[in-house]
């Protein structure tokens, strides 16, 4: 077991997956609690729209004599992507103030809007092809050491924010009307929660790809809800499932020559199935 740790790219993949899995499995509890699981898909498209915008801006700035701007957005498209993801997160969190739509509907609308925007922008970006955006979805086996260091900063920081404001996030997610009636600033805390979600999901997608990031966000939290008998059990189960599936998935992918990301997702689903079976047996 674990002979693969001798290979640097697999070590990077393991450490990155563990960090992303830890972060997104904790965040996923609030995503599932708020019934906004497709927020991951919508924010990933917002991230893609940001990259498309960066490519278009680089092309336009280059042809209109702004080489400094062109080179910045060309070298740092992820900065624009993170900015667009955070903007989308902010818009989704303040949605109830603007329009009377169910959360899932607003997220679906955001997904359609961001996807369309990304495709239309990339169509007009000089030198870009239709599938260029796919290059910006991460692959866990292609993680660079620099990205591991970035994750080692971003993930603990976001987890710290969640630890500090856990009760505010829970209160405003579990029963927002009661919290608002009690004087809690639900809009503010929802905004902070969505910002952390936006940042965490965008980071996760950029490094690990959308399938793995989305799965880390949803599957461990659902496993926790299936078996938990107290709210903290949900978090403990979610984190355990995410971390153990990462080890199992990478080991299995090396042993049977399978793509690592989807194999980790398969391990997540298998563990969630096992948790469901245990929960059924216990009842």
């Amino acid at each position, binding site marked *: 077991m674990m002979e693969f740790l001798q290979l640097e790219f697999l070590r990077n993949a393991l450490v990155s997956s563990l960090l992303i899995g830890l972060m997104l499995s904790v965040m996923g509890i609030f995503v599932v609690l708020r019934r906004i699981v497709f927020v991951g898909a919508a924010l990933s498209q917002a991230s893609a729209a940001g990259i498309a915008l960066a490519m278009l801006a680089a092309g336009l700035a280059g042809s209109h004599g702004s080489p400094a701007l062109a080179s910045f957005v060309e070298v740092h498209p992820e900065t624009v992507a993170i900015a667009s993801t955070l903007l989308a997160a902010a818009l989704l969190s303040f949605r109830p103030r603007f329009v009377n739509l169910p959360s899932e509907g607003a997220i679906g609308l955001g997904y359609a809007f961001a996807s369309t925007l990304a495709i239309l922008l990339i169509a007009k970006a000089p030198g870009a092809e239709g599938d260029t955006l796919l290059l910006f979805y991460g692959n866990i086996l292609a993680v660079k050491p620099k990205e591991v260091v970035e994750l080692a900063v971003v993930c603990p920081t976001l987890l710290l924010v969640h630890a500090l404001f856990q009760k505010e996030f829970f209160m405003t997610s579990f029963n927002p009307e009661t919290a608002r009636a*009690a004087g809690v600033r639900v809009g503010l805390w929802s905004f902070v929660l969505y910002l952390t979600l936006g940042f965490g999901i965008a980071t996760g997608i950029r490094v690990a790809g959308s399938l793995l990031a989305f799965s880390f966000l949803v599957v461990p939290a659902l496993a926790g809800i299936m078996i938990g008998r107290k709210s903290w059990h949900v978090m403990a189960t979610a984190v355990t499932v995410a971390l153990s599936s990462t080890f199992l998935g990478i080991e299995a992918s090396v042993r049977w020559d399978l793509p690592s990301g989807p194999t980790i997702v398969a391990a997540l689903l298998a563990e969630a199935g096992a948790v469901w079976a245990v929960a059924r047996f216990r009842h």
Partner: protein
Amino acid sequence: MPWRRKPSDELPTLSEPLVSVRDADLGYGRRPVLRGVRLEIREGEFLGIVGPNGAGKSTLLKTILGLLRPMRGEVACRGGRRSLRFGYVPQRETVDTVFPVTALELAMTGRHALEGPLSWPGRDGRKRAMESLDRVGMADRANILLRDLSGGQLQRVLIARALCLEPRVLVLDEPTNGMDLESEHALMELIAALHAQRALTVVMVSHLLNVVVNYVRSLALLGGPGVISGPISEVLTVENLERLYGTKVTLGELDGRRVVLPCRERHGAR
């Protein structure tokens, strides 16, 4: 940090109502559900807001709580809204019982609302939550999951959460909806006792007229144009009820309790 009054704020007087709804149009978006509403909630009052389904009871309640802004008119709270703490007990169907939360954990979220960010309720918060559960007769069910509680037990836990907030006004939305007769009676006795023990101001919305009129001191009838409100002895009249429900009613007493019934002839003809 306790709320501090600005020097410019007017000092409240005891005769001033806790909440005043003044000539307000209430509703969602641009669609008014209630027009020209006038209502006052006074300290220590037990007010029942009654009306048929769709009359706008929940809309009025949400406006009182500050969850909805009036489209026109004003909703004023004594000393400002931030100084008036509402313990809101929503309809229990709105509570997510899929997520594994115990009765004690839910009650403690009431304490969370009292404390600012970066603080934890700790032992004191847990003790207060247990006291609140004890007040509603649920201390022995503290570690039971919400999904394993009966409707009446869940309603009591929701009340315990509201009490944990140490509210000035306890606001209940259809608390006895869908309950059997015994649970309904027990819950209403509990709410009446909470009101009587500490002169807690209670506002309760219900479409169950026969339940409400036997416990409240003041009544607000919704369903016609505006709101008819005042002491129950003045508002609970045959004329008001017939106007509200659009049918002939009989108002009487049975075993010392008020009873409102639709008249047999008109009821049968429907």
